[in-house]
């Protein structure tokens, strides 16, 4: 049990208490008022983005002037997932700019969004998932980026993220990419042959030879999404109750018949420690898993399967600057810093395991340099993969409820 799990569990219990603002706002019937201060763009005017329908988000306000001086007073507030940074890189940023960085963490996106939107957390830099970008912009929570201050974006990052810009934010008006990942099957190579893992694919979770030795993500979109693909449904945002129901039944089957356990640390802790043999895994988790191996265990025991035709789940996280950031200029420097080849690479290679979408990263070199073990070659993400892979995007509230109902049934023990 690592510190990371401890925080995850302890923090996961934090319950939201309505803020004073929410109480005052109760003078009007909640849910009927336009969001924000009334001047916001109605969210209905911005369509839900997905890879087939890229969206150009409206400009809310102006980017800061490129000539704005760097704020060196106070503390840069960074709001990110727990354990998603290499502390040494943060330290390097502090040293370079002579500032302090305070890192506030959240354990799941809902918690992160809730605290930011309610004003409980004021951040200079925020790391949302792509499905929240539209809503954050529509409620005036993000500020447009000043691209003159982000030279590393066009210089170092895959063109798709700057020109034309990603599907969720054409022209990269509000976001820069943080890291990219695929979702596949991690396994112990000391117990499973590569060929067997490749042949089984997603069915590894159901294979009786791994009974009681299977871990699966405790995260509804990833969990149900992978089973949709396994069942031959190629829309990872399916709103078909029958398809979602079948994915749910598949997860219940792996739990009830094959002793699968739901856990967010199934790969980097349970697989590393040998507690499980196969686990659902983000590519970054299996690449970073070597840091969790017991002493004396070779990293060759770690294996990762992702479909050869690259038709699997794929995605990326983003970095943004909230509209009310107290240090917007310094925040731009921070974004640019993480897109810097040296520091972005160090964050990935020496700690995080999650790969930044840099043009300079050559899969063969990653393996030659020992950043990624040869057996984990499939965990390296290439620009090409994004053309083949399935990306999950925002669901309508009605569709989301179908997913959540299925998930709650699994959580309740089926």
């Amino acid at each position, binding site marked *: *049990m690592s510190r990371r799990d*401890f925080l995850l*569990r*302890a923090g*996961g*219990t*934090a*319950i*939201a*208490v*309505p803020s004073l603002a*929410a*109480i005052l706002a*109760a003078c009007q*019937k*909640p*849910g009927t008022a336009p*969001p924000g201060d009334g001047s916001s763009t109605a*969210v209905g005017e911005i369509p839900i983005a997905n890879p087939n329908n890229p969206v150009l988000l409206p400009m809310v306000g102006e980017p800061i002037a490129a000539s704005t001086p760097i704020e060196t007073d106070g503390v840069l507030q960074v709001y990110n997932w727990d354990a998603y940074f290499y502390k040494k890189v943060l330290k390097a940023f502090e040293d370079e700019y002579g500032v302090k960085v305070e890192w506030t963490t959240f*354990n*799941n996106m*809902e*918690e992160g*969004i*809730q605290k930011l*939107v*309610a004003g409980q957390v004021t951040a200079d830099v925020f790391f949302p998932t792509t499905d*929240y970008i539209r*809503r954050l912009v*529509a*409620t005036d929570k993000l500020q447009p980026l000043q691209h003159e201050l982000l030279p590393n974006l066009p210089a170092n990052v895959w063109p798709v993220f700057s020109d034309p810009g990603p599907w969720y934010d054409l022209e990269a008006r509000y976001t820069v990419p943080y890291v990219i990942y695929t979702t596949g099957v991690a396994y112990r190579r000391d117990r499973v042959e590569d060929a067997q893992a490749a042949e089984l694919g997603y069915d590894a979770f159901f294979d009786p030879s791994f009974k*009681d030795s299977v871990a699966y993500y405790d995260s*509804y979109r990833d969990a149900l999404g992978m089973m949709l693909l396994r069942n031959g449904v190629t829309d990872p945002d399916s709103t078909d109750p029958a398809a979602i129901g079948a994915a749910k039944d598949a997860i219940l089957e792996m*739990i*009830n018949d094959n*002793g699968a*356990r*739901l856990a967010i640390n199934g790969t980097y802790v349970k697989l590393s420690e040998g*507690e499980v043999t196969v686990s659902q895994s983000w590519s970054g988790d299996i690449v970073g898993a070597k840091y969790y191996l017991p002493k004396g265990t070779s990293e060759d025991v770690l294996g990762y399967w992702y479909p050869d035709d690259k038709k699997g789940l794929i995605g990326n996280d983003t970095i943004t600057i909230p509209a009310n950031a107290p240090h917007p200029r310094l925040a731009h420097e921070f974004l640019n810093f993480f897109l810097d080849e040296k520091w972005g690479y160090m964050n990935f290679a020496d700690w995080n395991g999650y790969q930044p979408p840099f043009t300079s990263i050559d899969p063969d070199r990653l393996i030659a340099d020992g950043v990624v073990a040869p057996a984990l070659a499939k965990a390296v993400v290439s620009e090409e993969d994004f053309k083949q892979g399935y990306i999950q995007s925002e669901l309508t*509230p009605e569709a*989301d*409820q179908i997913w*959540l*109902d299925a*998930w*709650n*049934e*699994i*959580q*309740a*023990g*089926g």
Partner: protein
Amino acid sequence: MDYPRWYWPAFTATGLIWLVVFFVLPFYVVVSVAFGTVDPFFRTPLPVYQPWWWSFTTFTATLQKFGAGGIYFDPLVRTLQYVVAASAICLVIGYAVAYYTARFAGKRKGLILVLLVAPFWISYLMRIYAWQSLLQPDGYINDFLGIFRIAPVEWLAGKPITVILGLVYGYIPFMILPLFGSLDRINQNLLEAGRDLGASPFQTFRRVTLPLSKPAILAGLVIVSLPMFGDYFTNNLLGTTTTSMYGNLLDNAVGQSGQGPELGSLTLILVALVMIPMLYYLRATKRAAERRT
């Protein structure tokens, strides 16, 4: 001296303020969340504080999920089973320990009590983590069983017994302490009188000690079972989804978008559920008090 009429009641003010600030107001917020709505964008809970705007659709829908065939039926039944089993085990073990400590521990009484309280020096979460490593497939428990040629048991793979024992472990001190307090206060003369009147040691226990400790038994049962109903971390750490309890339903809903009203409804239903043993306790102690006077 003559005090004004408000003088003595005024002493309850601190308690009343405490109750209003830390119970009534938060409870009203829970009710307002349960009957409220969600933010149309982020689906975060939007409490509705005006009762005339309350909506009961989520509450009724949640309630229906507890019916036979509903998705919350199994966790509810499981919770009742686990809580009853764990409370019963707590009572049997706790009574024996308290009885020994009160009657036979002599000079070591203080030491035993300190040892009973000692686990509280370490957070419950930490102690459950310790159990987690003891119960691993290759942990010490299985090593020990191996001595007797018992095959390793997958204790953490969703075994009800593991969760029940986890609950017993976590809550048993709360059973022992009130029992000890009561047994320790029983007048020795009453026991001697029982023996003098010809009762065997067992009869003395059954007809003197047990009835005198009944209020403490009830208090102990209430104290251990009420928090068990809302306990989620024992199962989070020692069980799986197949041993999900009521508390886990709450815990899951906390991390999901748009589930505020459902979470509030689950809380209200749980409150109603734990009111049943609580009311029984209040009635039983009231009757006992009446008998004494």
